[in-house]
């Protein structure tokens, strides 16, 4: 009822304001602070224009060209898109990316949530736990990968294999096996990225009303029931946002396969972004920048459509 009353009132107010305000001349626009607004906006427009919008437009243009960035480009229409579509490595890269995303979703998505819930239950030294959880995020990714490469040494004297050897397991080939390589990448990726999500969940958990937990306790709910019936429903907005961010992030995974395995062994960790990189820089005679930008656009369009569908499908659930 309140909503019904509010809407016409707003519309009325809007109409009356429009009818009262006279049409602005350039002088009134300047006097009204338009120029200073433009001045304040200019750096932002320049930065976005130069570093975001221009590269996007350039990407679209290059996807329709054949160019080695030294000689003049030639227009080739949609030939680059067709070439990508018919590349035997394209389905391999898509399948591997989906595999990475699936593994990351199964292992990487619940772990930060569980860690955050457990940490929120801790009464003492919560700061230390938060810091420990966040520490991998502040380690430069290249350093982290080099460190894990050392851990993943496939010989029996490798760090992980030595530890597992104590309980009579292994040695495992880790990055040196087609079957083990992708799960190994997901393991490191989860370790490296979980901290940031844990902090987001911890912040969200402070917003959960304590009365709800007290009421659940009065009803005889244990810790698991409290988490299921109170914590998760209260966090659902955040959970949905982190889920879509994780899906977008994993669809664009590049760093781990590039630094750990270069897409190997035998293309077992070749992801879509790595394929884009290979198109652009894989051939020392000059990259196929047309194909690289074409696949970039295909990925961007797919993710945009996926995000729209996801947001539309989960809109009612996230605001319930």
């Amino acid at each position: 009822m309140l909503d019904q009353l509010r809407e016409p009132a707003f519309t009325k107010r809007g109409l009356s304001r429009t009818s009262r305000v006279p049409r602005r001349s350039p002088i009134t626009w300047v006097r009204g602070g338009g120029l200073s607004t433009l001045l304040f906006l200019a750096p932002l427009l320049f930065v976005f224009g130069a570093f975001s919008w221009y590269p996007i437009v350039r990407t679209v243009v290059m996807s329709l060209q054949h160019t080695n960035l030294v000689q003049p480009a030639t227009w080739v229409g949609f030939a680059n898109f067709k070439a990508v579509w018919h590349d035997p490595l394209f389905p391999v890269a898509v399948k591997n990316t989906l595999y990475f995303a699936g593994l990351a979703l199964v292992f990487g998505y619940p772990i930060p949530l569980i860690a955050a819930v457990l940490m929120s239950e801790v009464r003492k030294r919560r700061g230390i736990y938060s810091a420990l959880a966040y520490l991998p995020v502040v380690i430069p990714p290249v350093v982290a990968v080099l460190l894990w490469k050392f851990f993943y040494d496939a010989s029996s004297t490798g760090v992980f294999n030595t530890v597992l050897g104590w309980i009579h397991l292994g040695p495992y080939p880790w990055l040196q096996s087609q079957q083990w390589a992708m799960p190994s990448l997901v393991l490191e990726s989860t370790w490296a990225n979980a901290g940031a999500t844990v902090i987001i969940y911890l912040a969200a958990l402070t917003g959960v009303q304590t009365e709800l937990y007290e009421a659940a306790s009065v009803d005889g709910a244990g810790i698991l029931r409290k988490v299921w019936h109170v914590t998760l429903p209260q966090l659902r907005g955040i959970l949905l946002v982190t889920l879509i961010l994780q899906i977008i992030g994993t669809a664009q995974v590049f760093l781990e396969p590039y630094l750990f395995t270069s897409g190997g062994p035998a293309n077992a960790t070749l992801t879509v972004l790595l394929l884009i990189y290979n198109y652009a820089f894989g051939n020392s005679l000059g990259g196929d920048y047309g194909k690289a930008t074409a696949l970039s656009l295909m990925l961007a369009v797919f993710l945009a459509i996926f995000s729209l569908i996801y947001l539309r499908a989960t809109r009612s659930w996230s605001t319930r």
Partner: protein
Amino acid sequence: MKSLRRIATAVAVAGLVALCATAAALGSRSSSVTISVASLIPGSTQAAIDQFNSQVAQFEKANPGITVKPVEYNWTGPTFAAKLAARTLPTVFEVPFTDARSLGDNGQLANLTPYAKALPYFSEFNPAVIAEGTDAKGQVVALPKGAYAQALHYNRQLFSEAGLNPNKPPTTWAQVRKDAKIITEKTGKAGYVEMAKDDNTAGWILTTVVYSLGGRMETGTGTSAKATLDNKYTIQALNMLKAMRWTDNSMGSNFSYSWGDINQAFAAGTVGMYVSGSDIYTNLVQAYNVNPAIYGIAPIPLAKNKTAGVLGGGTLAAVRPDASKAQIAAAVKWMSFFYEEPQISKTQAIRNAQTLVANKQPVGVPALPLFNKHLYDISQTWIKPYINVPIAQMKPFLTGIFSENLIPEPEASTQSVYHALDAVVEGVLTNKDTNVVQMLQQATSEAQQAISSGA
């Protein structure tokens, strides 16, 4: 009025003086030129850097108008392509034999023809070598730096520890397999390893082994060449690799060595044998301080058939396509001074060897002649007193290599052919159940696609 005239005269004189000074300054600026040149790979020892800087100082002294700026440089496929596109390569840079012609045809290298042909020794170049730096229009787009033959490098210390004779390296692939197994059993180290990374090196080494068995990766030339990756010799080479990896377990636990990694592992003494260019000793010293006592080099084992041969390759020096005429002229002078003259001019050869020795850098590393065998032999006599590499340990290689059947790398889409083979080598080394024939068929199809499109 007089004073006004005086002022006007003074102003005119001052103006003239200023004009002359500016002209003189401009004149001196136009006669001086700065070029950046590829120097050493990142991570080289201080001694190697000092040696290079001494060379630069000598060159600048001899060419007062030219300033040379050394830039660390390491050719790898992906970084080269990125630098080429971003135009961040030094004025003078190095490319493998496989790439120069195509880069020249694509307009990505400067035309050196008038300056190169003016070099007094240009006609002495080995025709096969200079052809690698000449594009389809006949323009010279690169000058040779060095040529190598693929060789078998082995750790003499591990051979001794395993009870093998370090003076008698294997001469057949069956012996390589047998010795690798013995080394692993006796020392616990990898008996034989191969570059197996997805950066074209795995394909390069597989091609070397296939050549040594008698096979070829393609027939014909240009975009009409036919990919023949799935020939019987490639299958034979891969089956041998499979046996060493999965039956003998003599290849250690690292199956993702790149060019640098494998050199590092060898210098660290963890590798019994591996295949790489005959000139690799320089990198082993400059980047990894290898103990000379462990180093041994032998020719690639060749099968007993007429088509078996040793893969030969090399490196050329080229110039950025956007370099000015003055820069190109200066660049060719530098290339002549740094790469060519030590091999054809007695004075320069001795001076170069002295500088290398003074900075504890290797002199006498096995290489193939850029000019002809006769001139090569003469140049070796000039530097004989300065040779500091373990030449006796290189005897197995040096005695046989010049009579071997040297075969150039696949001509059409070389790097793409190697790249298609990378996945096959990785597949064999990381999956026991890999279907070699099926993987080779896919690689052949990928390579053919690249060849036909000129990629």
